[in-house]
């Protein structure tokens, strides 16, 4: 995205507005992530919203700036880590004497355990989705730059 960086250098309105908006988008992503039990949303939507905040950052400020915030190795680890976190909840439930992904055993009562399990697996979903989407955008953008 070297072209993108140079092209956006003079776009003052775009740069200022996205500076204001990106934190709000990220905050909204966290709200969607941790409010999914009460309202519409959950890990998948939150991950996509968080990723779009970072992708907008990349489009406006350039690939190098965004890679300082979210380095590629970190994204790679997070992309696998979210799915592993999800699977680990299932294994932990088995260690507690339940079935795979049976969160009821994770808490003192079955509903409490369910809520704990759901919050953790939604976090795993959000982490994997967000980091994978940003990873895809980075890979495409790098490919564009190499041309």
């Amino acid at each position, binding site marked *: 995205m070297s072209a993108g960086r140079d092209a956006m250098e003079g776009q003052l309105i775009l740069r200022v507005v996205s500076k204001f908006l990106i934190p709000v988008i990220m905050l909204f992503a966290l709200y969607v992530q941790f409010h999914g039990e009460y309202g519409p949303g959950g890990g998948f939507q939150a991950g996509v919203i968080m990723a779009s905040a970072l992708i907008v950052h990349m489009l406006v400020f350039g690939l190098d700036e965004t890679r300082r915030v979210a380095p590629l190795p970190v994204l790679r680890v997070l992309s696998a880590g979210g799915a592993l976190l999800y699977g680990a909840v299932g294994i932990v439930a088995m260690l507690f004497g339940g079935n795979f992904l049976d969160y009821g055993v994770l808490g003192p009562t079955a509903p409490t355990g369910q*809520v704990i399990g759901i919050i953790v697996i939604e976090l795993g979903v959000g982490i994997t989705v967000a980091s994978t989407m940003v990873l*895809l*955008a980075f890979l495409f953008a790098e490919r564009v730059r190499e041309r």
Partner: protein
Amino acid sequence: MAELIDVLLFAFLLATAFYVLLSRDLLAVVMVAGIYSLLSAGMFLVMDAADVAFTEAAVGAGVSTLLLLIALTATGRWEKPAGHRVVPLLVVLATGATLVYGTLDLPPIGKPDNPPQVHVAPHYLERSGEEIGIPNVVTSVLASYRGFDTLGEVVVVFTAGLGVFLLIGGPRRRRGGEK
């Protein structure tokens, strides 16, 4: 009122779909495809499927539009005129006709004794409050009752990222060229 909104949304959906089909300006096509997703999200909202609408708006109108825009910077803005289009047209028409034929057997939308309404849905709606303890039944179905499916979906997302990474990421190509 609801019918009027339905008709308007369908009309705009058709208009955007035809624009995507006919335009050669791929930048405009990506934008209009995003609007198409936003209109679909509106239709899901009219059908009270807030979670689906949210996903459609975030994925279809949001992140996939961004990814397509980045891809466009690599491929160019204008679509090249295509040659023979008879075979693809026949394939599309045959597939479309099969799908329409398939819908003839579907029960009418919203009928109380439809199979999805009488199988496990009543159990979820009546018991998820005490079994799972969270107000949003959609989340309890996706995350707990159907936890295996969601785990599979997360692995699919990870695998997609891994596939793209293996295809176009990793070490530079130049190393092979220098040999």
